């Protein structure tokens, strides 16, 4: 049967078909749907771990117990999970361990553009890279087989374009799997103290040598000979981009990007006159092929940054591309992503933006509040960094920083990597105030469950961690809970906590407006009375999508309203189809012009 599937859905399907029954991960674009799709297959166990490091450890444990385990994360997740992974490369696996890294060329939804192929070399782990959904399904099976055959973790690398493109996949019957799990003791292999690790270190090098030999005949490394004039060496989705524009060239398509099949590359190079290496991001293949003494063209013509498309490749190789066309020359306003109408983060960050404090931020929907007009967040490095950075800043500033440094972090992010830095703050007696933006879900990546929501990935009821109690236990004495839909309360609580010495935590709690399970408020809509509106623009300062500025001309009768003695030149209006009725703008309005819409 044929099915249209995204790369992510195909990875989940392939894992299921080949008998993997165990998966863990932490959400992160573009990897999230792999876990969500896998979790729905019959007879599988799938969980969200609190973070990627935990996920990796859970996967390693499952593999040592003999399972075929899959661990799923976005590219930066591998940074978090690197510590256990690098040593799991030494121990190997009893069962199978496949790690999916979903990279994000062009930074569609990420804080950096790192090329995780380097992790394969660094950790001495083989890596496969599919080019479309059909290959994604086939390669994940290969990855499990390789892991078992060579007793090693195996990487499968995807990119945003592969993960989120859909193409036709041939569904196959899932394999019947016997339970191969068991407790097997093997201290020399699994206790990585120096004397054991030194021995495993040698095993790792031997395994890499075996894998290099294997790569030479691995059928997914294949030569497609056409014209001998030009040969293209490529992997992943770049293969399809190149085939689209240069079907007449010869190709060496690498299904395994680490280790490389040196003999096969030499064989290909001997058959073609000129070689291009086409790869997004770093010259990972190119540098290794050059080191073999083969002359190639690569990053001198192809960009280092951003994802490719067929046009980028055509332009780089032919130099010209089509002449510039004439098109309408109307300036196009940008359309950046924005907090949703009714987003509970908006009230909190409106207040933070007005307080003239440094807000050390973190990653989540709330990061968007760095933009105009809120401008309520002033740094964002990685998940969990908001707390540690606020503490470091506050300590470095000393007296000057008192009452001036706030750290913010989302609920999912706090449980991912905020607990330890908060413990550090309590332990080292910090003066910063931490706000936990608890919208009851992992909103940014599409409402995934986490240990604070009361449900698991597979929909089972579970514990719901009490964040306030947890924070107290860590040694933070002052813990306050506020409703971010109440601007006055948020302002008062923040001011009081900033004035206090010692660390404190404010939990800003209100469910995400898009979160159906926990309704945040009854839906209604607000309107602005054009007669009462003075045109002061205060409500526009919320940056709420339904509120727009409308110019009024001076000769129309209603243009005579005054604000601070100045004649108004426009009024604010609310698009009732977009308004969710959170009422924040009504709290701001000084002339009571904003009221609930009567049905």
């Amino acid at each position, binding site marked *: 049967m044929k099915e249209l599937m995204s790369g992510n859905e195909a990875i989940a399907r392939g894992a299921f078909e080949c008998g993997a029954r165990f998966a863990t991960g932490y959400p992160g674009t573009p990897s999230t749907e792999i876990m969500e799709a896998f979790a729905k297959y019959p007879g599988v166990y799938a969980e969200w771990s609190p973070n990627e490091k935990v996920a990796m450890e859970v996967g390693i444990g499952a593999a040592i117990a003999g399972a075929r385990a899959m661990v799923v994360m976005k590219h930066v997740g591998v940074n978090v999970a690197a510590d256990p992974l690098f040593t799991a490369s030494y121990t190997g696996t009893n069962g199978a361990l496949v790690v999916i890294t979903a990279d994000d060329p062009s930074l569609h939804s990420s804080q950096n553009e790192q090329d995780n192929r380097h992790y394969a070399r660094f950790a001495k782990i083989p890596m496969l890279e599919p080019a479309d959904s059909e290959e994604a399904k086939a390669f994940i099976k290969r990855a499990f087989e390789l892991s078992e055959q060579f007793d090693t973790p195996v990487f499968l690398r995807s990119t945003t374009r592969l993960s989120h493109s859909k193409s036709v996949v041939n569904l196959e019957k899932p394999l019947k799997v016997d339970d191969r799990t068991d407790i097997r003791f093997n201290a020399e292999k699994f206790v990585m103290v120096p004397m054991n690790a030194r021995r495993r270190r040698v095993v790792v090098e031997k395994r890499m040598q075996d894998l290099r030999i294997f790569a030479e005949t691995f059928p997914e490394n294949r030569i497609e000979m056409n014209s001998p004039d030009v040969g293209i060496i490529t992997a992943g989705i770049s293969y399809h981009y190149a085939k689209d524009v240069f079907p007449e060239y010869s190709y060496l398509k690498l299904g395994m990007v680490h280790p490389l099949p040196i003999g096969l590359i030499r064989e290909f190079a001997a058959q073609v006159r000129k070689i291009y290496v086409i790869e997004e991001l770093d010259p990972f293949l190119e540098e290794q092929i050059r080191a073999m003494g083969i002359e190639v063209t690569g990053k001198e013509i192809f960009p280092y940054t951003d994802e490719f498309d*067929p046009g980028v490749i055509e332009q780089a190789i032919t130099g010209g591309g089509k002449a510039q066309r004439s098109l309408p020359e109307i300036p196009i306003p940008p359309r950046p992503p924005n907090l949703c109408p009714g987003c509970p983060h908006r009230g909190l960050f409106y207040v933070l933006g007005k307080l003239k404090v440094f807000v050390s931020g973190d990653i989540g929907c709330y990061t968007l509040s760095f933009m105009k007009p809120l401008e309520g967040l002033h740094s964002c490095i990685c998940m969990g960094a908001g707390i540690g950075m606020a503490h470091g800043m506050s300590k470095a500033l000393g007296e000057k920083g008192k009452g001036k440094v706030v750290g913010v972090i989302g609920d999912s992010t706090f449980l991912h990597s905020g607990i330890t830095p908060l413990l550090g703050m309590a332990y080292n007696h910090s003066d910063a105030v931490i706000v936990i933006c608890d919208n009851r879900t992992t909103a940014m990546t599409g409402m995934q469950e986490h240990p604070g929501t009361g449900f698991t990935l597979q929909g089972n009821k579970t514990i719901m961690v009490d964040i306030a109690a947890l924070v107290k236990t860590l040694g933070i004495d002052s813990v306050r809970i506020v409703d971010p839909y109440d601007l006055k309360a948020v302002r008062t609580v923040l001011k009081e906590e900033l004035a206090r010495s010692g660390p404190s935590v404010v939990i800003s709690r209100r469910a995400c407006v898009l979160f159906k399970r926990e309704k945040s408020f009854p839906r209604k809509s607000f309107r602005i009375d054009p007669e009462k509106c003075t045109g002061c623009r205060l409500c526009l300062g919320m940056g709420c999508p339904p509120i727009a500025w409308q110019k009024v001309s001076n000769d129309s009768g209603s243009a005579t309203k005054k604000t601070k003695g100045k004649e108004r030149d426009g009024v604010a209006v609310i698009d009732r189809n977009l308004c969710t009725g959170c009422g924040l703008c009504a709290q701001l309005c000084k002339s009571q012009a904003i009221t609930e819409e009567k049905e």
Partner: protein
Amino acid sequence: METKSILLAGVGGQGILRASDILCRVFMAVGLDVKKSEVHGMAQRGGCVTSHVRYGQAVHSPLAKKNDIDILVSFEKMETLRYLDYVKESGTVIINTEEIYPPAVNLGDVPYPKNVCEEVRRFFLSVKSVNAAALAIRAGNIRTVNMVLLGALSGCLHLSPELWEKIIDDSFPFKLIAVNRKAFHLGRGL
């Protein structure tokens, strides 16, 4: 058959991904190879959303290059302008005349682009403008704007209406089928 490309573009929340899924299934049903590509994530938060759909005998890239789109379906008026350089000179442009203001327009910092349809007509021969919101309301649900536009697009594709209906029926829960079919036909009738 050589590979053809359609670009659906608009704003997060307009049902673009659902529409492009249906489009792909229609091509699959007539035995063609098809690939589509879109980026979600941040884009859901009111940002730009695009979906490239490519179909033919054997499709390689899921992304079209510039100057290569046969039909652009823009779900929002000014968004049309952002992607015109993707459209072939001989291509067709379908424009939903709905305006969704981006933040800078809401704040009154920059004006919403004027005369969009007229300007596009100066550069492309085949331009269709559609008041999709009005037709969706006429069909019975404002959220069927995507089906109205899919209907308008279907008018350019020479495939039987029964085929479209079958795929639409398979794509919605029973109680939403009638309204989506109606929206599709209102768009197709243009």
